[in-house]
């Protein structure tokens, strides 16, 4: 197990490097505009452009630039470790902003994920157990609605109702937990719900499908033949195999959301990583793009690692190799 985790962590490093190289190449290959032009101002002179290149490190060859990125990443820079440089766009150190924004995105994702699991799993289980009943059809209908409803629209609608009309919740924006836990919660509750509704719906359908598969497994028949109570059959025999496949998916979804809650962040005006990546991409902000890429890649890798370890604990057939 220990060796496996170490190997996987090395693998993570490899993936992160690969992702950063790809991002780096995409940045320079895509015809997106020369960042130096932007920093040379509105009326650039050749000297100014050249100077901007030097200032941004764009005067060096691509391998040199990448090497610089890498050595800073590993060795740290004046802003701390890992060294992520400073933003082309805000001219500000990337690391502290990354930490700030990670808190925002983290708050959204963790809360949302908790919510969607707490809603999605029971809904799926109930639907599967009450298969083809009014409950099942009703719940799955609702799920289908949330899966097909555009997140953007749902988010705006929820704001309109709960902020503008009812006035129950504060509007958009983020309040750090350390500043005011109550406000933090009040501001996050809608984004959580919006994020959770879609995923809860997806997960409910998955759990239901898995449960239905599991229910017809031979070993469930064995469980009944043992004279177990229905509760015990569900809790002890059906749930585990039905949820095991969800774990891997959960990890990947969570990882993807690290950089992917763009719509939620934009609508609810949360300055998180997704939003940042969007701004960075719009502004040729290489250091920020690279930083978010590294974080997302690392998050996906580490989350899937955790999922795999969890899966191995839950399902003894899975071997960590």
């Amino acid at each position, binding site marked *: 197990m220990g060796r496996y985790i170490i190997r996987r962590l090395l*693998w993570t490093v490899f993936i992160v490097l690969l992702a950063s190289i790809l991002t780096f190449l995409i940045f320079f290959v895509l015809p997106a505009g020369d960042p130096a032009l932007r920093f040379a101002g509105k009326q650039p002179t050749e000297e100014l452009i050249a100077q901007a290149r030097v200032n941004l490190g764009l005067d060096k060859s691509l391998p040199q630039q990448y090497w610089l990125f890498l050595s800073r990443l590993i060795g740290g820079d004046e802003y701390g470790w890992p060294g992520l440089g400073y933003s082309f766009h805000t001219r500000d150190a990337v690391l502290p902003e990354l930490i700030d924004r990670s808190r925002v995105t983290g708050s959204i994702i963790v809360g949302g994920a908790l919510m969607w699991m707490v809603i999605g799993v029971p809904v799926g289980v109930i639907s599967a157990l009450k298969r083809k009943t009014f409950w099942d059809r009703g719940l799955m209908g609702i799920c289908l609605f949330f899966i097909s409803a555009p997140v953007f629209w749902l988010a705006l609608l929820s704001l309109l109702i709960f902020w503008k009309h009812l006035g129950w919740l504060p509007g958009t924006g983020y309040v750090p937990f350390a500043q005011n836990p109550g406000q933090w919660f009040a501001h996050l509750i809608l984004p959580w719900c919006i994020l959770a509704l879609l995923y809860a719906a997806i997960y409910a359908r998955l759990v239901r499908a898995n449960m239905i598969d599991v229910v017809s497994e031979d070993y469930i028949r064995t469980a009944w033949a043992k004279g177990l109570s229905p509760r015990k059959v569900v809790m002890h025999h059906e749930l585990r195999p039905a949820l095991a496949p969800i774990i891997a998916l959960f990890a990947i979804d969570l990882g993807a959301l690290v950089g992917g809650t763009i719509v939620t962040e934009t609508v609810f005006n949360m300055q998180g990583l997704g939003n940042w990546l969007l701004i960075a991409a719009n502004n040729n902000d290489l250091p920020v793009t690279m930083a978010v890429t590294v974080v997302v890649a690392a998050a996906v890798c580490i989350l899937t690692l955790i999922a795999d370890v969890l899966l191995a604990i839950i399902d003894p*057939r*899975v*071997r960590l*190799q």
Partner: protein
Amino acid sequence: MTEPTTTPDATPGATVTADVPLVRARGLVKRFPITRGVVLQRAIGHVHALAGVDFDIYAGKTLGVVGESGCGKSTAARIVARLLEPTEGTIEFEGRDITTLSRRQMVPLRRTVQVVFQDPYASLNPRQSVGQIIAAPLRVHGVEGDRRKKVQELMAQVGLNPEHFNRYPHEFSGGQRQRIGIARALALEPKLIICDEPVSALDVSIQAQVLNLLGDLQRERGLAYMFISHDLGVVRHVSHRISVMYLGSIVENADRDALYDNPRHPYTVALISAAPTGERGARTRRLLLAGDVPSPAAPPPGCTFHPRCPKARLVSGDPAEVPERCRTERPVLTDVGEGHQVACWYPIEKGDAEKMMEIQASEITLEGDPELGVAQTEGLTDAQPRPDDLVDGGTGL
């Protein structure tokens, strides 16, 4: 039907002379690597699915191959069908080495070898009508002419109503589906059909129908069969010559009746003895083997059967002892007369069977062979595929 012989007579319809087998397989070895890693895979071991196998298939005749899961019988069949590449060894088809042929050169040969699979439903595309399914090989191989007529002829030949060519597989029963599979195999007029457990999934009363159909087709068309089965009764019924396989090797090779009447390998004896016959008191005459088949990933040294072999214990005179030779040297197939080949250092002699049973009786009740049960598990701890998972199911087919 002629009496089975080692060198068969030229059967009507056969295109090859008696001496040259249709298929001659020599030294077939197939190893499946057990890999670790996602991108950079490295082999951490091998499943020895086939460990050097020789056999001949003659035109118009049936080679039966029996053995339990993990013995390599399906791997051998797939290699002959060219669905798998052997790791080592050669296959000659009508005297021509086809192991080295390119994909393109294989095309005409593929027509001459067809496969009928175990699960008739899984091997038929549910979205195609029966007519389309049977015509598919004709289309693929560019056979011209009235395909519909040809399809209907084939359907009639295998006992399906030719009017039903527009129906879909789910509208047919299991036995009828297997007939569809057979019709499809026949479409290109092959010389050899590989039957991989073709009746195992069928009900008893239907099995007989399909076996009779296969027999009739062989007589009419001079087809050769390579017939894979775990059911000794079925194999005996269809085969002219039979190879018994155990853990990737052929342990005994003999004409049908010689094998059943006078089995020489202890494993063959056990296999025949274990098969249910429905006879009264059969149980008392059973030779029960201890333990399970070891993992092909870690086959025992020497004779692979030695850990379970009752004859070896008879030879040593001690239920817990096995002769050194069996543990260290691997026996090769040796002719013991009239084309009867056996790979055993101490082939069964008259009276051995009864004696073995006595040993067995004491052994079976004492918790099998403790070493065997645990050793096998240890050999398999690291998610190595189990024999039944991998060798017959995990080949990507």
